[in-house]
């Protein structure tokens, strides 16, 4: 469907709405917000809009990002366009007509206040159809466990930017696995590595959000 292709292009280039004067080749055209409203009025299902429009666009920008052809600002404007579209889909998720792929609990570990990386992962995961519960920064193990108690079938994402705070991940991972060994725990952050992730008992390390979505899909 042509409209979904247009929508995915708006997400890829970060065209939130008609008024937004970016990117140059789409100036004056409908943006993600208008196209989503039109698609719904044409009877296209929220699920198709999500999968064939939003996720396709987010995947394209994610692929560019992971291959060094796009950078964090590109991802952020794409995510903004994705949120503009999601506003129209929200009622369908609330009513249960549209379903998330799953739920992710995400947070920056205790002692660390950095949140840009974590926020980017959150946006990309939401664009990929996941419900994300963001616990914020400086998140103690107890808060993860408290939320795991309230949330069924979820995955967990932990972030750290300091070599001191990445050590706090170990305790959080251990307690999560003790709580329920089958919960997948993924980690990310500049000083981390796959070797470190496995050493502390996490399931995997990802250097960028697109690799995460590719892996879990």
């Amino acid at each position: 469907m042509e409209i979904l292709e247009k929508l995915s292009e708006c997400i890829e280039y970060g065209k939130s709405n008609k008024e937004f004067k970016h990117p140059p080749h789409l100036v004056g055209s409908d943006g993600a917000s208008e196209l989503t409203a039109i698609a719904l009025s044409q009877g296209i299902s929220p699920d198709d809009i999500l999968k064939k429009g939003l996720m396709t666009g987010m995947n394209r920008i994610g692929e560019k990002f992971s291959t060094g052809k796009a950078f964090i600002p590109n991802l952020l404007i794409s995510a903004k366009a994705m949120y503009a579209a999601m506003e129209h889909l929200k009622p369908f998720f609330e009513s249960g007509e549209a379903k998330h792929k799953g739920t992710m609990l995400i947070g920056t570990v205790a002692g660390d206040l950095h949140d840009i990386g974590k926020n980017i992962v959150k946006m990309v995961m939401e664009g990929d159809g996941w419900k994300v519960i963001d616990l914020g920064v400086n998140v103690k193990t107890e808060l993860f466990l408290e939320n795991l108690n309230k949330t069924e079938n979820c995955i967990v994402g932990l972030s750290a930017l300091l070599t001191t705070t990445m050590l706090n991940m170990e305790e959080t991972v251990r307690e999560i696995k003790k709580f329920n060994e089958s919960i997948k725990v993924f980690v990310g952050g500049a000083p981390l590595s796959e070797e470190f992730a496995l050493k502390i008992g996490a399931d995997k390390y990802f250097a960028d959000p697109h690799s995460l979505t590719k892996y879990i899909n």
Partner: protein
Amino acid sequence: MIASMNVQTYNLLMSDLGITEKRILCGMGYYDDVAPEYIITATAEFLKLADKNADLKVGFAEYSAEQIQLTRSTVSISGYTFNVGKIIANHLKGAESIIVFAASAGEKFDKWIASQFNANEQLYGYIADTIGSEIVESACDWLENFLVAKFEGIDWKCSNRLSPGYCNWNVEEQHKIFALLPDNFCGIKLNESALMKPIKSISGIIAAGREVRKLDYQCNICNLEHCYKRRKDKNLE
């Protein structure tokens, strides 16, 4: 009371640093690639606003030869022993003076960055955050140039600036760095995780001496894969 007899601090203006829009764009990843026009425009606007929000401070305490002991992987400064590792110890070879320094963009700058994120403008928050990182790096560049000029007269050379958290130097040792500086130096405080507040702050050491040589950062043997110093040698001007 710290043991250094020479402690200096300077208030800098953005105009002292000559930060270009290109430097900020490079800081966001756009080295060879052209950034979208919208991002270039937003960066230019935020660079102007940054000037009103920065309270730039840089300073140092100088420790002399008799206060320094160097081994193959450690350096002791006024009784505090740092396990800097072999890479950094190599940079410090020949030190007759060690300059312990810190720089900060100030608390107001942190609040300005947070206000952008809180307004749910992730892009603007990210641009402000990148500007913060670049201005505090530039303040340290300014300090390096200042020290080179200061020591030139006695024919001493300076090492690169070296900070805990890089080149296998444990970031936890930042606590010792601040023990060698006066309290609340440049308005910086450390938390238990050795995280500096304001966030846009840098601390470290620089060696100076007749036999000191400015070596390249040895990124090929460091395990910090995503470190910004790996990008540093790219031409920013």
